């Protein structure tokens, strides 16, 4: 019972923080809200008995990605004088329409479907050995390809962002 109350608190916090990311008037505030939202989703993984993925979420999203985003914000100075302009384009009402429409459709589909597994009493704990077994044995090749992708992407990012001679 206590877990359910906690779940609802976290769900409400995630929804509010995510709304803060897209509705906030300050770009720095958006980035701070994003950290909270990503950490909240990590907490959801703990509710789902996936401790390892929660750890990955906190480390990569809460740590690396948000630091990258804040660094990019500092380097591009969007709040500096002379760069003050509306963060939203003229198409904002249509975007609101599309977002709200998508939400209504998704709600209708989710509530209109009978999902299997609604009779489960409690989630089984996922041992870390199962995660590693699946990741390194059954999905070994995709794992290696994903690591190569990450390496190539980050080398490419360095080359793109590098200060060139005579610039």
């Amino acid at each position, binding site marked *: 019972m206590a877990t359910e109350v906690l779940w609802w608190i976290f769900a409400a916090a995630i929804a509010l923080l995510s709304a803060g*990311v897209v509705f906030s008037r300050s770009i720095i505030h958006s980035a701070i809200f994003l950290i909270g939202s990503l950490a909240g989703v990590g907490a959801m993984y703990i509710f*789902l008995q996936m401790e390892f993925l929660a750890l990955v979420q906190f480390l990569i999203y809460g740590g690396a990605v948000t630091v990258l985003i804040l660094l990019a914000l500092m380097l591009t100075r969007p709040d500096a004088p002379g760069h003050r302009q509306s963060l939203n384009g003229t198409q904002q009402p249509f975007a*609101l329409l599309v977002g*709200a429409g998508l939400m209504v459709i998704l709600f209708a589909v989710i509530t209109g479907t009978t*999902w299997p597994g609604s009779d489960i009493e409690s989630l089984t704990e996922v041992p870390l050995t199962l995660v590693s077994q699946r990741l390194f044995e059954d999905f070994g090749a995709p794992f290696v390809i994903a690591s190569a992708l990450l390496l190539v992407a980050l080398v490419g990012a360095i080359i*793109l962002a590098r200060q060139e001679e005579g610039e």
Partner: protein
Amino acid sequence: MVPLENYLVLSAIIFSLGVYGVLARRNAVLVLMSIELMLNAVSLNFIAFAAYLDPGKITGAIFAVFVITVAAAEVGLALAIVIRLFRNRATSNVDEAAIMKW
């Protein structure tokens, strides 16, 4: 015990907010943040399905690992492009970076 539908509804809320953000925002970094929200909603869905319907194999959780990997690669590259754009054209507004638009 929270039913599966709750996770799906929460994920739908985050995803819709992300779609709104991508369409409405004009700053490239804000668009990127909204994309991160959408990717997170997808991972949450994957992991919820894995925990409820597939606890013996957790294929969805493995998918989420790959989603996180690709998201990290994407964020690194996209921010490099944003910094490059800012250096060349002194803007991070996606509407002003229309040089490749016919």
